Structure formats: structure tokens, C-alpha cells
């Protein structure tokens, strides 16, 4: 599954790819799709899609439109649309996203906040009907 997703991502127009042997320190910003397989310390921000590969180790707050995580992130993740936490993905930090999908085997330690509140009646009100 992880391989298929990562291949699909590569088939999209990827603006920047950070290879596994690369180490980045500072604020990494991109206007296009971004794939990270290396190490980043600082901040990561992209206006489009982010793929964090299995070999990636990121100590940074992250902002993206969509994100798919198969590597390790130590920091807060803010995604305006969809976040996929893949089977090998690990997030140690808070999540803020529009849609969330968590695959079996993923690890997440932090708070999660979704953008849109669903229209759900409280249990007490249902019981009173």
C-alpha cells in the first residue's frame, strides 16, 4: 500500500524531492508538491501535497494542503484538506486537519482536531426523544 501511494505521488508533478541522505536545517517552503525522504529540522510548509516517505525523520511543524505520512514526524501537523497516516507513519505532536485516515500499524501521540464539526446530536438528547 505504502509503495503504491508513494508511486502515485511521484507520478504527480513533484516540485521538490528531498532524498534519504539529505539533511535540512531551517524553514523549507514549497509552492508545489513536496516529497521528503531525508531528515528535516525546522519548519516544513507547502501550498500543495506533501509525502513523507518511510525513511524520513522530521523534527518540525508541518503545514500542507494534503499530506501522506509514512515516516516519523516530531512536531505539529496542520493540513487544510486530507491527512493520511500510513501504516509505518509516526506522529508525535498535535494534528489539525480536514479529513483524517489512519492505517493499521500507524502511531500517533497527541491531540487531534478536525476542521469541520459534524452535525451530531448529543446522546442525552437522543435518549429524551
Amino acid at each position, binding site marked *: 500500500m505504502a509503495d503504491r501511494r508513494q508511486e502515485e505521488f511521484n507520478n504527480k508533478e513533484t516540485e*521538490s524531492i528531498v532524498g534519504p541522505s*539529505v539533511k535540512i536545517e531551517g524553514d523549507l517552503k514549497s509552492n*508545489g508538491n513536496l516529497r521528503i525522504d531525508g531528515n528535516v529540522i525546522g519548519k516544513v510548509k507547502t501550498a500543495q501535497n506533501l509525502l513523507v516517505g518511510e525513511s524520513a525523520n522530521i523534527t518540525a511543524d508541518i503545514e500542507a494542503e494534503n499530506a501522506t505520512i509514512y515516516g516519523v514526524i516530531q512536531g505539529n501537523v496542520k493540513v487544510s484538506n486530507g491527512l493520511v497516516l500510513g501504516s509505518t507513519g509516526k506522529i508525535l505532536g498535535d494534528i489539525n486537519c480536514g479529513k483524517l485516515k489512519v492505517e493499521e500499524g500507524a502511531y500517533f501521540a497527541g491531540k487531534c482536531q478536525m476542521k469541520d464539526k459534524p452535525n451530531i446530536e448529543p446522546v442525552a438528547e437522543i435518549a429524551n426523544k
Partner: protein
Amino acid sequence: MYYYILDTHGIPQKDFERNQTELQGLLTELNINGEMARVTPLRIIQDLVDTASNRGATTLIACGTDQTFNQMLASIKEHEFTLGFVPFVPDTQLGRILGVKDVQTAARTIASRRTERIDAAKINNQFFISYLELGLGQYTNKEIGMFSLMKLFAANPVELKMRIDDSYVITSKVMGALIVNTRGTRSHVDSPIGNPQDGYLDLLLLEHMGKFGAIKNKQEITSGFYEKIPGATSMRCKKIEILEPANHKIYIDGMEMFKVPSIIEIVPNKFRMIVGKDRVF
């Protein structure tokens, strides 16, 4: 007014004379005559560019090799010219970029005068329009056999350290690196990399790989398409400061031109170039 700078450097005398005669005939036939000046030890390209500017030339044409054009670019500074190129040797990097493969197509291209604005890249205040090469990158678009390639991969990787866009520092052990404005191929048609009209430089890093990897990816390595190799790095940026390793050589088209540390920047829409229909952008 057209100002033609003719440079014999790197061209056999016989070939130079033949190309010059052919060019003169075509310029008369196509009615694009102008002033011709030949580079000599006493009149270097810088002097000729200054002369062209003083005489009010609006179009500057380098006739010779890629090196002739690169030296002309380095001499232009803030002068405003429309630029052209006439290759006097086969298979030039610039000829591929601009779509002018020989004297005949170059002369006809100048006559039809289709121009395009392109970005210039600048290293230590010297302009170039193609790409810089580090490490194995210097063999890009060069004939290199399998045995030689594998021998090159046996060398130790280089630990590069660069500051990008004044925003972050990148360190990586690489076999080769390219800093690309354009690659002289139609690569950007299905890829954002190597488009000289997008206002960006593309940084490509080739990681160390085993013999099998080198054999499998020979085509991508020798053509400079590193982004198609698994594990390679490709990043878009506007400014690159190469910080380490100190004194490491930086090449343009296989020729050593600069050394680390160096600063590379993109200058969007800097040059107006005369281009052929087979240009790569």
C-alpha cells in the same frame, strides 16, 4: 545593428575558415549583414562587447563554441542586447538549447528573428544560461563508457553543504550535483525541471549508489536527469550558496570555471535570445 563576435578558440583553423566563409555568404544572402569582429590576443571578448555597445549595436551574436557564448555573457554585465549564437563546432550545448545545430540553421534563425526572454543564472556575478556541474555532474552529456562510469562511482562521495534561499541549510553526501537553469533538452515539457522561463533554479543531487545502480541508471546519470533516479534530490530555488567543501571545483559544460564557496542566483527574464523552432523552451 548586428555585431558578430568570431572566436577561433577550440576550433581547427580549417574548420573556422570554412564556417566563416559560409556564414558571410548566408548573411549577405539573408540580408542580415553587420559588423564582424574576430577575437585576438589583443582584442578579447570583453573589448569587443564594449566596442559593440559603443557603436550602438542592438544584437550581439557569438560565433564559435559554447565557451565563446559563455565568455560573451560574462562580458555583457548591464548592457542591453538581443543575443544570438552561431555554432562553429558540432553538437554544442547552446545549439541544443536554442535550436541552432549548425551555421546554416543559425543564420536562418537570426534572419527570422524570433526572440524569447529567458532567465539568466548568475554565479559570483557572472551570467550563464545552462547548468553548473559538481562531481560526476561534469560528465553530463559527455560520451562515457560503462567501465569509466563504474570507476567514477568507486570514488568517495563529496559532502556538500549549501544554504538555499537564505532560508535553510542542506547537507548531503553526493556523487554529483547539477544546478540547472536549462538542460538543453525538452525535459520540462513533462517536468518542471530545466525550464529557463520559470524564474527558478533546479538543484539536483545524485547520491552514492552501487555498481548495479550505476549500470541501471547510466542513461539518467549521463543525461543529467537525476530526478528520475530513486533516492535523488531535486529542489527548486532562487538562490544557492555552496558553502562546503572549500575549493571544490565547479564546472560549466565540463570546463572548470569556479570553486566553492560560490553564490548562484536566478535573474528572471534577463536576456532576449534569438531562438530557432527546435529550441527546448
